[in-house]
């Protein structure tokens, strides 16, 4: 199969993720969309690795996974604590920094 198709899929996934981040308000959904974008870029990286015949892209994908794992840990913790204090997971409610 032509590896370019994987790139199309990655672009599609990234776009879906990005739109989700921009449109949705639920913090958990937002979070999942961010994960989707990260995984789309992982897919693109692995595809590039295959196309160019070296392992650079795959190594970078591992880095992304580690960063994503760390992000999930911190991000979920924040979301949980916000939910506990404010009884809402809507990001639009967390606008206290606005003057």
């Amino acid at each position, binding site marked *: 199969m032509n590896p370019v198709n994987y790139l199309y899929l990655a672009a599609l996934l990234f776009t879906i993720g*990005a739109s989700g*981040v*921009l*449109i949705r*308000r639920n913090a958990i959904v*937002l979070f999942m969309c961010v994960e989707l974008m990260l995984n789309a870029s992982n897919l693109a990286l692995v595809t590039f690795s295959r196309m160019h015949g070296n392992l650079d892209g795959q190594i970078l994908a591992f880095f992304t996974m580690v960063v994503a794992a760390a992000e999930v840990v911190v991000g979920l913790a924040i979301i949980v604590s916000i939910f506990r204090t404010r009884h809402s997971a809507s*990001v*639009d409610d*967390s*606008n*206290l*920094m*606005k*003057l």
Partner: protein
Amino acid sequence: MNSLIPLLVAAPLAGAALLLLGGRALDRFGHWIATALAALSCAFGLVLFFDMLGRDTEHRAVTERLFSWIPVGGFRADVSFQLDQLSIVFVLLITGVGTLIHLYSVGYMAHDERRRRFFAYLNLFLAAMLILVLADNYLLLYVGWEGVGLASYLLIGFWQHKPSAATAAKKAFIVNRVGDMGLSIAIMLMFAEFGSFAFRPVFSAAGDASEGKLTAIALMLLLAACGKSAQVPLQSWLGDAMEGPTPVSALIHAATMVTAGVYLITRSASIFNLAPDAQTAVVVVGAVTLLFGAIVGCAKDDIKKALAGSTMSQIGYMIMAAGLGPIGYAFAIMHLVTHGFFKAGLFLGAGSVMHGMNDEVNMRHYGGLRKYMPWTFATFMAGYLAIIGFPFLSGFFSKDKIIEAALAKGGTEGWILGTCALVGAAVTAFYMTRVVLLTFFGEKRWQPDAEGHRPHPHESPRTMVIPMVVLTFGSLFAGGLFSLGDSFLHFLEPVTGHEEGHAPLSAFAVSAIATVCMAAGVGLAWLKYGRKPVPVQAPRGSLLTRAARRDLLQDDFNHAVLVRPGSALAATLVFFDSKGLDGFVNGLAAAIGGLSGRLRRIQTGYVRTYALSMFGGTLVLVASTLLMRSV
């Protein structure tokens, strides 16, 4: 024995501190503490004086270094007192007359509820004046100088509830500041030129300095003297200063404060002797002021203001004598001391008259008081005869010496100065006779006061009469005593130096002419005020009289030349500041504020907005990268 010198200053200073900090507990007897401390200071002065007399002429001047005040590198200022023949004369005058005035104030201020404060200020004044005359360097002298200014401000404005008194105090302080500036500049010049401002090094180095520098220093010292001694052109404060209680007028404006300028010039003799141009300026200032004050004194109906004009005039004599150089210094001081006696006596007498007349000051509302106040009348007459130079009383000796010295200046200058002094003597006789005739002679012109009380003149209490009697002795005999064998002259000679002047007229001729002038003045005053009744309402008078009533337009002059342009300048600057500078700064601030308000709307606080802007940014970056590649 020298350790008494700091105590001399400390006694009144402690009194001031005690009375000011002591609070109401001291209200009942605080004035006696102050009087006792002034007397104690006077006693110290007498002990030091006799101690000094016991020593040889060369060893009479002593210095007592108390502590180092400002030691910074090459700059060194000590709190150090010097007691020499000149200082001791002032010390005795200040503490002696000061004590008498304290005693007088006990009676005069008996019904004033702020009496304790008044005595605290009197003590403060004595202390400052003593520091001034005992300092052995110009910086410490400056401390005393400013202290005197402060005390006079507090005392002139003592009845601060009267707007006129508050204004007069401010006026005295501000006019004095001009003079103070002169003194501070003189001190700076001295430090720059000689590297010191202590008397001894400055005077010994003065001979090596250029005449121009010495003239500059001397002129600045003259400016200072003009301020404190109320000489033209800084004389305008003295008349208004009569707003203070009468003992204050006697203390500050007759016997002590106004003499500070004469002291300064005499003390700085070594500088003035080497700066002939500055000496000429001093002489001119003195001569002009002696006539100016005398003319003002002739026109005033307020008894205290008439005496104030007289003070100005008499200080003019002293300044003129001091400007004559070594032929005049000792006589300036001699006249200063005799004037201290009789002018304090006259002021206390005036206070006593006011005391008996419901605080009336207008002489046209007096008249015929000699029967009602015999003691006041007798002591006032003694002061009167002394000040007009009645033969063989104090003023006769001291004033004739000054006239003689003026003539001895030589040449046309000598004749002009001598004539000024003689005319001044005649005018002095005129206005003093006027005061006496209006107050004690003639018919009663008493007027009820504002509340309708008719005055019931009565003799003042004993605490007020005793000081007047003591001062009378000074007025009558001091001059003769000083002149006996020229004792005063020889006593002061080591400090001030002395040269025998060669007057074109003999001493006897000068005395004769002065006496004739005096008699002419008295006669003229009698013709005008003694022979015919005096109108209660002041007649319109000639142009000169009207000008003299307005202090010869000095205030109008100051107002037109200094105050008006000054306030115009200030108004211009305020306009420029508020419209120009403030406008620019405020406009800038408003512009930035408005812009920020608009920009703030960008921050919505919603995560998606920020995410969108991040995406937008990324998009732009990627697009521009691709675009650059393809080009």
